[in-house]
């Protein structure tokens, strides 16, 4: 199969990006050192190509009610120019996808969706089309850059007239970046302050290079998907296909805060109501390794001599210098310090449940998805 390429493919090659298949896209997994890229985002600023993410627009007179029906969070509560973490759910209450919804105004909404789910989401929303709306797959119309880290504002401010200090977390605006009309969003997937820029693909290489140039004093660092994964894991943010999928629901995944049962009807509501009354049977928890070893995705998890689960995401945590992971456990085993065993290539290694996020900033910061709602 031919892999899809973002408009920054040649840029990644030039920078020594190690290219891998990710959801059918040829993407840089790192540019030599995941550790260095990860730590750059925590300490100064990193830049990611996330153009593989999908974009779906809902436009028309009934766009808002359409979005209310196919997403779990409350679109009505948003002001124009605000973004929202949300989910598309099956009637069972399980995940079609997790998304970020942007409200331009009540008749124009943009959904940023996972690359692997782009077609599925588009078909799902189209199947449930209602009223006067157009549903558009706009994935090819946007490149997306993520500029993440405490110095992100200082770097981006040099390329735009927009006053970034007045753009709050989970708000966005349209404006020129380096002379190119872009959507500038104060969002991200790292736990750091930062921005996501949506812009025409043909302009992405020049803007990327401009950011590298103006960000030199801040030691801006191109960062790959491996760092993106360790950064989000340290925050215990869910990743579709790992923590959340068609078998898990928001109550189990600690994502109850993106479900607004009181907002009116939406797909999944009835079952979620019923499930909430029952209480979740299992819940997503963080753990850290006690014995020497690294838990990896899908490794078996044991409690009291029984295999009861598997690791949904597991990795070294570069910021904490520990080995951490996420797993679903029956609720009676979810208390902090609960002993577990992770089966690492045939050996049972000790681990224990710990609070999440794994990584906590030691000074005040702009908010991030895990803290909203």
């Amino acid at each position: 199969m031919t892999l899809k390429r973002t408009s920054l493919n040649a840029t990644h090659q030039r920078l020594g990006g190690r290219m891998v298949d990710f959801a059918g896209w040829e993407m840089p997994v790192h540019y030599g050192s995941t550790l260095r890229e990860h730590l750059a985002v925590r300490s100064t600023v990193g830049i990611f190509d996330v153009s593989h993410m999908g974009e779906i627009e809902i436009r028309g007179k009934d766009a808002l009610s359409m979005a209310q029906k196919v997403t779990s969070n409350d679109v009505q509560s948003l002001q124009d120019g605000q973004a929202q973490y949300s989910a598309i759910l099956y009637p069972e209450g399980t995940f079609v996808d997790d998304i970020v919804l942007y409200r331009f105004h009540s008749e124009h909404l943009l959904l940023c969706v996972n690359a692997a789910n782009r077609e599925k989401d588009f078909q799902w929303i189209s199947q449930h089309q209602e009223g006067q709306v157009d549903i558009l797959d706009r994935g090819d119309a946007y490149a997306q850059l993520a500029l993440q880290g405490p110095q992100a504002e200082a770097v981006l401010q040099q390329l735009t007239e927009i006053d970034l200090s007045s753009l709050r977390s989970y708000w966005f605006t349209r404006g020129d970046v380096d002379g190119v009309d872009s959507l500038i969003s104060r969002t991200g997937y790292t736990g750091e302050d930062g921005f996501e820029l949506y812009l025409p693909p043909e302009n992405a290489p020049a803007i990327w290079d401009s950011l590298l140039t103006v960000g030199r004093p801040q030691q801006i660092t191109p960062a790959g998907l491996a760092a993106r994964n360790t950064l989000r894991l340290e925050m215990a943010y869910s990743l579709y296909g790992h923590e959340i999928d068609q078998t898990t629901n928001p109550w189990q995944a600690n994502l109850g805060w993106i479900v607004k049962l009181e907002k009116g009807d939406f797909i999944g509501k009835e079952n979620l109501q019923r499930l909430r009354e029952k209480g979740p049977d299992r819940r997503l928890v963080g753990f850290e390794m006690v014995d020497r070893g690294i838990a990896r995705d899908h490794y078996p998890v044991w409690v009291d001599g029984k295999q009861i689960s598997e690791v949904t995401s597991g990795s070294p945590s570069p910021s904490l210098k520990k080995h951490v992971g996420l797993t679903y456990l029956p609720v009676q085993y979810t208390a902090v310090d609960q002993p577990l065993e992770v089966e690492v290539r045939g050996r049972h290694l000790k681990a224990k449940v710990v609070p999440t996020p794994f990584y906590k900033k030691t000074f005040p910061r702009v908010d991030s998805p895990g803290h909203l709602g």
Partner: protein
Amino acid sequence: MNIPENLLYSKEHEWLSREGEVVTIGVSDFAQKELGDVVFVELPEVGHSLSAQDAFGSLESVKAVSEAFTPVGGEVTEVNESLLDAPDKVNEDPYGEGWMIRLRLEDASQMDNLMSPEEYLKYTQEESSPDDA
């Protein structure tokens, strides 16, 4: 790419140096670059007996686990325990402080299957096609 002249190489990207009956084994510069940051190393016990092609340990990067294989058989006489606390030595100095194990060679003819530096260079060039993931 650093491929020292005085070493021999395996298809799994280990290097070997031989002094009498004792063979030192590590992973090549090519291998450490492929792995990315090595953050965790597992090594065998001293005294453990290995056959040619056995996995003798593992190297873990942030993203993945890779096994290390010995191209020759023998008893493990020494392991580089300093890697347990400083696995990054595999990246920084793969042919020096990043060595992994020493073993007492059982069958010297097994050394014949290894690649010369020239052969190994060619081998790595074939392996690293642009589409390689």
